[in-house]
């Protein structure tokens, strides 16, 4: 490796990592936590047996999931950041990014959570109901704790996907990892090196998450006999 290459690496790496710490990681974490909350509410509304006016609410949530799963994330980002100001709604880049990522990951994860809840055998509901629990108690004490185990692998997919999708925030002026790489590569004429460095940091973050997922899966499956 030539000494100039080494110099570029040692000066670029800290900048890319700083961008990861300041933008990529907080954007991912905040959006995912809010998205999960939204996903849980959406799944519960869509599974609720309530009738009457409540059916309109259920319809609205169905429409939300449909909309955000049927349009590209990049287009959603542009509409929220560049489009809504036309209607007098102006967000900072940060707010626009968090709103869009939250809504997007919430739509996908709500389907994961809904499927996980539905995968728990009906006998669990019945056993808990006959003990006098309310539907809410059954859901939170009996069904969701078991659904967590089922939904962990697909939710980890969404989480890891979101880490990488935050690179799209570069298109709405957020100087996250990818933008930093782009800027340095424009200065040094070393696109291969710079984009590889950026890829490397994504790889490291996602590897850590994959290992974490492994531990979580082990812990949430502690009551399941060894599987093959």
């Amino acid at each position, binding site marked *: 490796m030539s000494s100039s290459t080494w110099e570029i690496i040692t000066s670029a790496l800290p900048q890319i990592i700083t961008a990861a710490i300041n933008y990529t990681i907080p954007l991912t974490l905040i959006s995912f936590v809010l998205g999960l909350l939204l996903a849980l509410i959406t799944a519960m509304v869509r599974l609720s047996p309530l009738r009457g006016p409540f059916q309109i609410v259920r319809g609205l949530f169905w429409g939300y999931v449909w909309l955000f799963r049927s349009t590209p994330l990049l287009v959603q980002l542009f509409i929220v950041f560049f489009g809504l100001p036309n209607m007098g709604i102006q967000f900072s880049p940060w707010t626009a990014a968090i709103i869009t990522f939250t809504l997007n990951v919430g739509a996908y994860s709500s389907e994961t959570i809904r499927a996980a809840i539905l995968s728990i055998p009906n*006998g*669990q509901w*019945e056993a808990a109901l*006959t003990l*006098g629990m*309310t539907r809410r108690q059954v859901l939170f004490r009996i069904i969701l704790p078991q659904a967590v185990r089922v939904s962990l692998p697909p939710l980890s997919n969404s989480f890891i996907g979101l880490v990488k999708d935050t690179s799209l925030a570069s298109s709405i002026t957020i100087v996250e990892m990818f933008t930093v790489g782009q800027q340095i590569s424009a200065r040094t004429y070393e696109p291969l090196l710079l984009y590889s460095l950026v890829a490397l940091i994504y790889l490291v973050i996602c590897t850590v998450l994959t290992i974490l997922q492994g531990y979580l899966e082990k812990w949430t499956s502690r*009551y399941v*006999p060894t599987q093959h």
Partner: protein
Amino acid sequence: MLQLEHVNKIYGERHALNDINIAFPEHKTTVIVGPSGSGKSTLLRSLNLLERPESGLYHFDDLNVDFSKTVPEKEILQIRRQTGMVFQNFNLFPHLSVLRNVTEAPIHVLKQSPAAATSTAKGLLAQVGLAEKADQFPTALSGGQQQRVAIARALAMKPKYMFFDEPTSALDPELEAEVLRVLLKLAQEHNSMIVVTHNMEFARGVADQIIFLEDGEILYSGDPQTFFTEPTARIHDFLSAMNFMIK
């Protein structure tokens, strides 16, 4: 006292319960028998409102439910808190230890203190011979042990009535015997019980009242002696078929 009057339950074309009139006396064991698909489970599950019949009246002590109207959530909870149910497939909560399976409802439904619920649960587990399994997860237990935990879990709510829907049908004969011994003891202690079973020997030994169902209708209700010694032609056929299966 539990009592049903003119209760009907229809699934599409199928009359699963056809004008059911029956009382289940307190401190007695009522055994429900009948061929597969005759409506035994539907009858039992109507008593804790897991199934909702289309019409008829249900009297639970002073509480009167009219199935043709919407039953208020409060009444449903009230009935379920006073009835325990044991299922064919145990339906233990797999993510909770054996002990927590038994304490969960007393703590969160009856609002007992964890300490009180735990000490009651330990007593009940000892009663069904499983004191040393308290800290295991249900999947580490045999079917017979799981079913005894399920019985302890239901008893922990101190229900007025206990319902059993073929509690031993998923078990091997030796495991069946260990569960039936627990049931027999409960019956001898004059608990109020309703048991659906295919085990005629057990039915004969434990029943104070016996009900024979076919096609959603009660063809016999009364004392077990007459049922087994002077059966009608239809009941005779049913009993011989059951005997053939056992031998």
